[in-house]
């Protein structure tokens, strides 16, 4: 079976190359057929890998190294992409998958452009497939298969994390097709409104799963790593944040290009950068040049190949860009105070934020090259990234109603006054009953203000409230995304400023106080799971009348010889009481256990905010699909006044 898969992957490579050649020479139908063939072959290749994992076929080196017969079936299957080679196979599959989707769905009425886009996608896929087959083949057999596998990293034995990589890859690799569209548009010298309308669909199709993937990773880190936090500014997290930030900038810039034909050069640059940052992310994570708690599947030589790929793709795209950018046309004139100006401000903030994350992530690495050992962590990003993003958050309600070309400033003052009143209110409350610092009071006011302004804007677009469901899907998408952003801000501010964390050291029968809760350790037991054994604590927490038993565990996976923490979380309605079991110590002849205990207020609001943002993207994607037929007819009538 695996040999069949190996052969199919070579076939996929040949087809991808063929689609590259035929596409770039302008034959759309040939390129489409080849990339569909490549997708079919790669699907077969990937399925043989999944099948080998399902059957625990340890004669395949990948399965022997990353699976185990005692693992539950779903994690055997998820094990296919829970390692370097398998995840590269998934990467290739998603890439030819996007190519195949483009072959079917990309209909702009410009066959030459579509052929070139499919051709570029074919070449990108050929590069990835060559990397897969020649630098990290998952199809290698062992001459002497072991009787038992070496298991998968048990930290990854988790539903959120089984889904996290496929989601993230849909996002990362989705930007390869946006890259291909930009390259094809640049070759033709046409980055115009028709181009942007089509590119916007694909950029959204990448942005939504990327957001969902980052969210899943964050949720997983929250309850699995046992640190009580949701974002650690770890290099691996930063690697996924950078394409997301560029993707967010691109979403906004594409709107200007679609509606007005302006920002063509800038939009093309962002479309290219989104994918380059995705590859950079893969390089940073895989090469192991950065120390990270999440580092997995690390190998420096493979990193080198990725770096070369990054330089080749990046160099080619930027050269193409530099050559064609002067020929791209702009839209009608606009003044600084206009929708164009506002979206330019948005793009400025998002790109500077991306540059900040890049600088903070790479700086220690560069410093090490000069013989200096240093760290850049959370405090740095809170003092640089956060205030820069704050500029965009404060501006959003002021500018979201602005017209294209030229806008009036008068509405802005009302919104500013609203923010001032809300902030004053929370400061008064903060000094009094809520007991929160001034900065947090402002943050909560800002979040509520964002929520309110997104709803007001939705209503304004509908003119009358009962008509809001007749608004176009993209208006709903925008409103939901901004609403989710507001919820996220509230949750993030409250969680970051009000969380309480402490370390407890308890013997059985002992009590302690945490954030108004009394905590007592009733019992410690040994329990056994399918492929692990664990110490489980019975931790009774009580406050007032309510009493709950939390059962944090420390699991040990004998096959991987690795411990993991299983946190226990009690949702109080306003936040999470969160406990993680640490080490056992013998003090004075008495056994004591260490616990990390946290109170995380409003953490669900933060996750819910990102879910609402993702939903906004989904609504926009689904709505655009439905509208497309209508748009095709009306577009001739409404024919692009700029051209």
């Amino acid at each position: 079976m695996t040999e069949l898969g190996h052969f199919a992957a070579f076939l996929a490579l040949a087809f991808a190359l063929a689609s590259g050649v035929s596409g770039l020479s302008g034959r759309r139908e040939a390129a489409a057929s080849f990339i569909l063939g490549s997708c079919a072959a790669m699907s077969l290749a990937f399925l043989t890998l999944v099948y080998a994992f399902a059957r625990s076929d340890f004669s395949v080196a990948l399965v022997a190294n990353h699976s185990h017969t005692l693992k539950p079936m779903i994690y055997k299957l998820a094990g296919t992409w829970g390692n370097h080679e398998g995840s590269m196979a998934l990467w290739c599959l998603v890439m030819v998958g996007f190519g195949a989707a483009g072959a079917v769905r990309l209909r702009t009425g410009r066959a030459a452009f579509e052929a070139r886009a499919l051709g570029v996608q074919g070449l990108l896929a050929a590069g990835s497939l060559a990397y897969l087959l020649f630098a990290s083949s998952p199809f290698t057999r062992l001459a002497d298969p072991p009787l038992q596998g070496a298991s998968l990293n048990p930290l990854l034995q988790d539903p959120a994390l089984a889904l996290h990589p496929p989601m993230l890859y849909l996002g990362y690799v989705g930007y390869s097709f946006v890259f291909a569209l930009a390259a094809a548009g640049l070759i033709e010298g046409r980055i115009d409104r028709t181009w942007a309308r089509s590119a916007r669909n694909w950029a959204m199709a990448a942005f939504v799963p990327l957001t969902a993937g980052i969210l899943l990773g964050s949720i997983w880190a929250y309850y699995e790593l046992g640190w009580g936090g949701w974002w650690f500014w770890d290099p691996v997290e930063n690697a996924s944040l950078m394409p997301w930030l560029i993707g967010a900038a691109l979403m906004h810039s594409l709107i200007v290009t679609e509606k007005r034909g302006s920002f063509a050069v800038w939009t093309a640059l962002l479309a290219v950068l989104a994918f380059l940052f995705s590859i950079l992310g893969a390089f940073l994570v895989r090469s192991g040049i950065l120390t990270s708690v999440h580092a997995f599947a690390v190998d420096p030589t493979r990193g080198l190949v990725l770096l070369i790929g990054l330089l080749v793709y990046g160099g080619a795209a930027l050269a193409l860009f530099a050559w064609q950018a002067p020929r791209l046309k702009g839209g009608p004139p606009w003044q600084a105070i206009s929708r164009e100006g506002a979206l330019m401000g948005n793009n400025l903030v998002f790109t500077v934020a991306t540059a900040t994350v890049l600088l903070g992530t790479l700086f220690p690495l560069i410093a090490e090259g000069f013989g200096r050992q240093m760290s850049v962590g959370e405090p740095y990003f809170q003092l640089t990234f956060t205030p820069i993003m704050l500029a965009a958050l404060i501006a959003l309600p002021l500018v979201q109603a602005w017209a294209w070309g030229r806008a009036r400033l008068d509405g802005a003052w009302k919104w500013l006054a609203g923010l001032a009143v809300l902030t004053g209110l929370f400061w008064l409350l903060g000094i009094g009953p809520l007991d929160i610092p001034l900065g947090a009071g402002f943050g909560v006011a800002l979040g509520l203000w964002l929520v309110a302004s997104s709803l007001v804007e939705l209503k304004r677009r509908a003119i009358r409230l009962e008509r809001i469901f007749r608004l176009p899907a993209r208006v709903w998408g925008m409103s939901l995304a901004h609403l989710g952003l507001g919820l996220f801000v509230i949750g993030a501010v409250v969680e970051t400023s009000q969380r309480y964390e402490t370390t407890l050291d308890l013997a059985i029968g002992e009590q302690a106080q945490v954030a108004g809760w009394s905590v007592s350790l009733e019992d410690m037991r040994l329990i056994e799971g399918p492929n692990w054994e664990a110490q489980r604590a019975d931790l009774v927490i009580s406050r007032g009348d309510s009493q709950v038993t939390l059962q944090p565990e420390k699991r040990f996976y004998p096959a991987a010889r690795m411990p993991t923490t299983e946190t226990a979380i009690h949702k109080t309605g306003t936040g999470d009481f969160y406990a993680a079991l640490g080490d056992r110590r013998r003090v004075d002849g008495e056994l004591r256990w260490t616990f990390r205990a946290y109170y995380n207020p409003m953490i669900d609001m933060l996750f819910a905010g990102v879910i609402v943002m993702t939903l906004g993207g989904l609504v926009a994607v689904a709505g655009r699909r439905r509208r497309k037929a209508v748009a095709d007819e009306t577009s001739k009538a409404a024919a692009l006044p700029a051209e």
Partner: protein
Amino acid sequence: MKALIASLFLVLMADGVTLTDQEEARAQALMREIRCVACENEPISQSASDIATNMRERVRRMVADGASDAEVRAWFAERYGEFVLFRPEVKGPADWLLWGAPFALLVTGGLAAFLIARARSTQGEPVEPVEPEALQDE
């Protein structure tokens, strides 16, 4: 035996520094920005290792003794190297680049954006405002 009990007593004493709520909050904030020397990229507030436990105790004790945040950071940097500070100190021109570049980029980018906007608005014909997509008033 007596000596052993005495030393155990000392260890327990070190564990038992009591802080006011304000001091505890300050100590926790410091623990979140000091890096554990034995782990991969974790602050001492999170790490379960023995050395992190000792480092946490040291932070608490220094805060109880009235040390300022800067003094605590300086002590750790002196003892373990600047590697342990997640908030890098500004010591040379490279650090100015690290801390200053984001804001410098924002300012120069903003200036460039403003100049572009001005250039785009003064291209002859008057600018007509166009409302963003919305339902029409019936």
